[in-house]
């Protein structure tokens, strides 16, 4: 059977983003509302007067650069200076023209930048460029951090670990490095190290971005959450921007929800979406599904918040719009290739909701090397291969699976998939036994929805081989799907 994506838990764990994407999403901006910067008013008037008296490249560049420092992009003189530089002959340095163009352009987030659709080959090129960069200027922690992301995305975890350690040594108290390193350690299976790293940082009690990462990772790994009251104080601190507090709000809200304080959870959830990051919005969307509420104005937020692919995919999924949800989920996959979850989610929709096993396999096969050790991911891949008739690789992958460290849910899911493989290899008797074992296991765990999905896949196999038990199984599957309101199978069950 296709593994269901685990919708019972989610944390606003920081995304493992490269520097350019983090900048574009505004994740590195000051947390405080009022930036501390004195304005040298006398001096700007000085450069303006210099430019007005003697308009040349140097006075134009000085005026532009100072306007840039002061973020005075509306200055008429500076705009004139930028146009002057752009109209200069070809001999003007390219960097100066770049400066002038940047000054005049309206900033807009390049969606292509956020969706890294590059294949492994370009990642190797990126790594080569970054290596060259650090050979020349080894003190740049950003280059080391970006290198770690590329290595991790290629599945070269040891090299990723080395690179992120260098970045951490160079900049142990930087928000971007701290959040990236903690997420990297989480992917490396060292959540305790990630939490330790964050909680010992002086930024932990000052920067809501760092606090939020600490709480989310600790909660996800069932580690003790430190200083929750100080974190709550940060959420209440109106000197901080709503944007900077959004992930912290939903992280605390999630903890409150877990502790049973639903009213407080809703309050934090609402505060988290005043000006949310895409991660906070996705978390809030998940929370709303758990709390049985709706986020008012989600459509508007989904359009306004850049890269909110996960939030939209989840929202559409909950609204049973599976086709559009799959489209958004595919964007989510390209945005977060390091996480197996978007791939599991997408393949589940393709397989279970849209009955499109070929699509399910296609979604998974490109990132197979990276997630080969993830049992849920591999289960969906094996299931997809088996159902499309590609039995040999399906069995090979199944045999090679590491089943030493599975949760009960994963164990029963794989038992059902083994049943599927037995059916496909003309061993229906064994297949029935395995499906039955999986369904009983799910029922014992009170995972009735998973049991219903297993029954559906079982019924599908019985019908495929035209067995005498098919009517009984189909009836059971239809009854369970209707009773438990398994919306994902509403369309597929009709075809049985």
């Amino acid at each position: 059977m296709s593994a269901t994506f685990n919708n019972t838990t989610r944390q606003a764990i920081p995304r493992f983003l490269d520097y350019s994407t983090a900048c574009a999403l505004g994740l590195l901006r000051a947390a405080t509302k009022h930036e501390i910067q004195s304005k040298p008013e006398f001096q700007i008037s000085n450069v303006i007067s210099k430019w007005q008296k003697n308009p040349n490249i140097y006075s134009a560049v000085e005026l532009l650069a100072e306007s840039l420092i002061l973020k005075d992009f509306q200055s008429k003189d500076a705009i004139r200076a930028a146009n002057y530089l752009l109209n200069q002959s070809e001999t003007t340095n390219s960097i100066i023209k770049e400066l002038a163009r940047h000054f005049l352009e309206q900033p807009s987030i390049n969606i292509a930048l956020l969706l890294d659709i590059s294949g492994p080959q370009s990642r190797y090129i990126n790594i080569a460029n970054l290596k060259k960069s650090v050979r020349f200027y080894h003190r740049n922690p950003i280059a080391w951090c970006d290198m770690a992301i590329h290595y991790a995305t290629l599945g070269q975890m040891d090299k990723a670990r080395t690179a992120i350690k260098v970045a951490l040594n160079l900049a142990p108290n930087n928000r971007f490095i701290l959040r990236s390193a903690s997420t990297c350690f989480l992917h490396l299976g060292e959540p305790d190290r990630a939490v330790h790293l964050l909680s010992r940082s002086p930024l932990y009690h000052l920067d809501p971005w760092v606090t939020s990462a600490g709480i989310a990772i600790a909660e996800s790994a069932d580690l003790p959450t430190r200083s929750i009251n100080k974190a709550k104080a940060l959420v209440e601190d109106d000197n901080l921007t709503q944007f900077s507090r959004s992930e912290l709000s939903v992280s605390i809200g999630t903890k409150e929800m877990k502790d049973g304080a639903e009213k407080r959870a809703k309050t934090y959830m609402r505060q988290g979406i005043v000006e949310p990051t895409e991660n906070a919005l996705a978390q809030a969307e998940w929370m709303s599904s758990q709390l049985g509420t709706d986020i008012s104005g989600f459509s508007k937020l989904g359009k306004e918040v850049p890269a909110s692919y996960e939030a939209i995919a989840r929202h559409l999924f909950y609204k049973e719009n599976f086709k559009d949800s799959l489209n958004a989920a595919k964007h989510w996959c390209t945005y977060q290739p390091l996480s197996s979850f978007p791939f599991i989610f997408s393949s589940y929709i393709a397989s279970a909701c849209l009955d499109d096993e070929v699509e399910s396999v296609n979604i998974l096969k490109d990132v197979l090397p990276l997630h080969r050790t993830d049992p849920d991911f591999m289960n969906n891949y094996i299931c997809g291969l088996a159902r499309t008739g590609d039995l040999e690789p399906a069995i090979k992958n199944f045999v090679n699976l590491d089943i030493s460290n599975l949760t009960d849910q994963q164990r029963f899911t794989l038992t059902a998939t083994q049943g599927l493989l037995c059916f496909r290899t003309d061993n229906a008797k064994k297949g029935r036994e395995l499906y039955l074992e999986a369904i009983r296991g799910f029922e014992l765990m009170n995972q009735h929805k998973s049991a219903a999905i297993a029954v559906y896949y079982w019924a599908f196999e019985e019908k495929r081989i035209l067995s005498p038990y098919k009517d009984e199984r189909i009836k059971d599957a239809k009854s369970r799907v209707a009773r438990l309101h398994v919306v994902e199978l509403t369309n597929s069950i009709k075809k049985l």
Partner: protein
Amino acid sequence: MENAQRPAECLVGLELEGGWHVDSIRHKHPKGTGGNFSVGYLVAHNDGRKAYLKALDFTIAFEQSDYTRALQDLTTAYNFERDLLEKCRKKRLKRIVIPLDSGTVEVPGVLGPLAKVSYIIFELATGDIRSELAEWQEFDVAWALRSLHHSTIGLQELHNAHIAHQDLKPSNVLIFPIFGSKLTDIGRASYMGTPSQNDAKLIAGDWGYAAPEQFYGLHLSNDFSSRFLVDNYHLGSLIFFFFLDCSATHIMRHKLSKKHMKNFTNTSFINDLPYIQQAFREALDELSASVFAKVKNKESSEEIVMIAQQLCEPAPKLRGDPHVLTEKHVPHYDLQPYISSFDKLARKAELNIL
């Protein structure tokens, strides 16, 4: 007070002490040196020497609401600069523009104490780096490297005299026909052991040329050497100016602004340093491309870029020659290795073997 009535603007034709005659007005520099109002003149000596006169106008103080404080600030700044220049003269600093004379002249037709205008007379330069570069049809590597060599010597001389210039920029490197480049305008300087108005300023010099740590006030520590390190950054920034027509600060702020979608926000130096270092890395790429295009010899090109990298390193503690940084008995802001490097590079360029 109307501009036309300012006594400092009425010196043309006057005879000054020491045999000087004011020929013509060169420029008005509102709120220029150290925040003073200064007016530049061309003056001639009886022996035929031409020179530059900087006249200070204290009348601007009376336009301020707290004019007593403003007047005190102006006179303090003027006296501080004059004293520093006198120290430079006594120490015979060769790469610093030294005053030839100074004094006070009474402007006829103006009554009261305001009629007296204080002035300082300097050697007359042919221009500054910018005016020189503006005239070039083709980039002159030898000239640029020699000018950098002279500027480095000038800065080292100031540092040895315990003076931090704090406003080294292209317009403050003057060009003289025989003597080459000299540093000028120490109105924004700080002098070790003598407090001045400049000491407390977040950025004493030009914001467009400020070192990264200056935006965060890091140089305001008790350790005076942090001010010397700011000077070293400014020196490295001159390399960027020669090869890219803009300062290292201009490029780094541009790169930061571009990456952060025109919204780079200052937080703390420690937090922002990695972003600045990334911007610096991108700035070095721009510099490398330009240097490699203008200097054909790969080894020399790499050396020029390396010097810029070491002098403009955003982390002040790591700024400078790595050998000097690890040396116990040499101050870490020491510029001697760069004097040698620039001299060697300039010689090579002059011999056309660069």
